[in-house]
């Protein structure tokens, strides 16, 4: 149990470091890459549901902590993203690169729109970074999944959940 927690925490730390690197590269281009969402989905696919929801919530909280609008918005969106992922994961083969790219890209788009709508509801402003970020950011996020997924599974030791 403790080892499992340490593994998940190590994944979280790795995700935050990778997120920072992507922010450093893509932020000047005004593109938002969903690195934390990628790791939340990997955990959702490989770890138990309890771990996945907790991981997604804290990934969202991490982004909220550094954002200056709507603390808790990303946490809610990521929780909903993992919930949606669990609802559809039995209908697709998430181990293949193709489905990984498409599904991650679509979930990132849905998460971006959901965050925007949440902003409209709670702050009165639709939190939107533009179509370029929406499209290019989602595509990069999708392409990131097949690269990160085997790394996370092999080297960061997210073990497949028992009795899936």
């Amino acid at each position: 149990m403790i080892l499992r927690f340490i593994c998940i925490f190590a994944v979280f730390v790795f995700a935050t470091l990778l997120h920072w690197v992507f922010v450093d590269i893509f932020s000047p281009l005004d593109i938002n890459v969903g690195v934390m969402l990628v790791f939340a989905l990997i955990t959702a696919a490989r770890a138990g549901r309890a771990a996945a929801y907790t991981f997604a919530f804290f990934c969202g909280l991490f982004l909220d902590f550094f954002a200056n609008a709507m603390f808790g918005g990303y946490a809610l969106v990521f929780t909903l993203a993992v919930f949606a992922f669990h609802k559809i994961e039995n209908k697709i083969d998430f181990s293949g690169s193709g489905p990984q790219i498409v599904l991650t890209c679509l979930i990132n788009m849905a998460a971006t729109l959901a965050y925007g709508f949440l902003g409209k509801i709670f702050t009165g402003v639709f939190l939107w970074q533009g179509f370029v970020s929406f499209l290019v950011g989602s595509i990069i996020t999708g392409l990131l999944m097949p690269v990160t997924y085997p790394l996370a599974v092999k080297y960061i030791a997210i073990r497949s959940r028992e009795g899936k």
Partner: protein
Amino acid sequence: MQKDKSKKKTGNYESIYVRWLPAFYGLLALLVIVLPLQKPVNSARAVLSYVFIPQLRAANAVVGYLDGTGDAVKNLINAAAENNALKDEIARLRIDNAQTEALRGENERLSIILNIARQTKWSGIWAKIAYREPSRRSMVIADKGSYDGVELRAPVIGVDDGVVGLLGKVIEVTPNTSKILLSTDDDFFVTAFLDQSRIECLAAGSGRGGMAAKYIPLETQITKGEKVYTSVSSALFPDGVLIGSLAAYGVRDEKDAVFISPPIKLAVDPLGVKEVLILAPIPSGGTEQGVSAAAQTAQKGGKK
């Protein structure tokens, strides 16, 4: 048999617990969104800062170190040639410095004679940009915090290609970091002064990566490219900080408005700047919002 039953029972409890987990986290997130300023939420943020900020600082330090390695090697190779050039430069600057000192003395004497309030020297804390908020281009986090003397509402200026200009203000301070609201945010206002037209206006962030000079009377003869500085009547910012230059003549705010709002070409690109100078906040005076409200009232009056 009994063991199997108890295992099944535990499994059922686990299943119910997992089934309600998304609802629990969803409600928790909603609660946090709805009550962002409540004490428990602020306490949670304070605890989270101890978990998240060390990672951020570590990543920033590693990337900064790696980023500088190539330059360090190149500099080492060119060191001898640069050393000679710098010696010449120092000699030249010594002469310039002596002249500057003489001019400063003369300036002070004249200021006393003419009874002009002297401009205070800008001093503050140099900090590096450690994080940029990716979803909104209006906020950055600097790697210096309250331990280094950074205070809330402190003005921040940046240097871009040798040009010093306004960057934003500190809106949140933790012991080791500070959150800076950039001048391009639509919540950012500063009382400004047009260099050639000699009138005051309100420089406001457009929220789309730029700023605009608001509440300039319609009949004012403004010049494209004229410099915009922070005004002496600014409550938060020292006067004379370059904001940028007028990028166009400007259009009316509304069809029957009595003001124009020309866009400002910023002196310092907030997305490109890597090092900033965080100044000490100005202790007294009104607020920029107060100036904004007064100008808005004036606009309403003008419309009537």
